[in-house]
């Protein structure tokens, strides 16, 4: 089955993570034009280095969820011309709820929820002008089944899922749809080291007895950007090999 896409320009937030790079390659091969965001020089260099074979077929821009001016700057540079948005951005605040530093709490939710809402407002309005758009949020199984210490992470993911869900409810009739994907264990990026040390745990908990590869998660994301998945709107889907399905 060949995938078809309504549009070409794909804004990829948090574009310097491994999964985003894998997705960008798939996008380019599908004649999409990814615009990847980075928050520091290291991220920019990593994008340039890994996508060097595809020079001219993608773009990258600065965006830091702790820097509100960077939103204006980003949308000024890309114009209102986006057809897709894939959102990988997520900060960490690993702490028990009753232990967390108050300043960290306020900053965390500002950066991971409020800032995201601002981006979605801008993206939603840009897509409304074209009367089409597809937004995919990369959430986590932790949203549904967090471990101790993941309360803030889970909270930010759930709040963000709700924003994406409502965007799909509110703008669906104008051809703008959304989906949140909840990956489980992925053998890529920050998950790689974790899985290496917890191999047995992963094997025990996941019905398919393995972590997912970055490639297969990226292919799943690409599918959810395509016209074939348009009926899936304003909802959350697990990509976890069945991790959260059982007891």
């Amino acid at each position, binding site marked *: 089955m060949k995938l078809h896409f309504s549009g070409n320009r794909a804004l990829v937030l948090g574009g310097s993570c491994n999964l985003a790079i894998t997705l960008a390659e798939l996008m380019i091969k599908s004649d999409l034009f990814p615009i990847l965001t980075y928050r520091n020089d290291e991220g920019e260099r990593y994008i340039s280095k890994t996508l060097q074979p595809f020079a001219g077929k993608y773009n990258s821009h600065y965006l830091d969820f702790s820097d509100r001016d960077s939103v204006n700057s980003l949308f000024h540079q890309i114009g209102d011309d986006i057809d897709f948005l894939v959102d990988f951005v997520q900060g960490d605040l690993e702490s028990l709820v009753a232990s967390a530093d108050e300043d960290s709490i306020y900053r965390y939710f500002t950066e991971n929820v409020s800032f995201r809402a601002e981006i979605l407002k801008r993206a939603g*309005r840009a897509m*409304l*002008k074209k009367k089409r758009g597809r937004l995919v949020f990369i959430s986590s199984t932790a949203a549904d089944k967090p471990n101790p210490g993941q309360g803030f992470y889970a909270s930010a993911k759930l709040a963000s899922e709700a924003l994406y869900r409502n965007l799909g409810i*509110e*703008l669906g*009739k*104008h051809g703008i749809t959304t989906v949140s994907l909840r990956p489980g264990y992925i053998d890529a990026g920050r998950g790689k080291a974790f899985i290496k040390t917890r191999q047995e745990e992963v094997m025990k908990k996941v019905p398919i007895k393995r972590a997912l590869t970055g490639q297969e998660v990226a292919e799943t994301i690409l599918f959810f950007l395509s016209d074939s998945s348009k009926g899936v709107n304003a909802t959350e889907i697990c990509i976890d090999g069945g991790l959260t399905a059982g007891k």
Partner: protein
Amino acid sequence: MNILGEIKEILTEILDLEDREITPETYLVRELDVESIDLLELAVALNSQFNIEVSDDDIFLKKFRLYVTEAEQQKTDMVQYVTAKLPFLTKSRAEEIMADLDGGPALKVKDLISYVVWQRKDETFA
């Protein structure tokens, strides 16, 4: 085409109105049954059509009642307070809205015109 004409075209398209007369005195919510999603579309269309920044809260007078309440609490002149917050409204229009608030959302087409004119003037002198 003048601003009223362009706004009428936008409203006709968004609300799928046919043969409906729209004047500056037409109420958007009370008469045209405009809903929040329609207002969002309208804001985006005005931004595109007139190349202006649009604050949904300001242009649609969403905080008008709040500002009136704040003025009462601060014991300050209501008209002056409201027009400082919503500078595209004239004093006479602010007074008109205050007298009309009991009837429901007071937003009229002429408020959209005032906003567009005010924003364009601001951007001309920026």
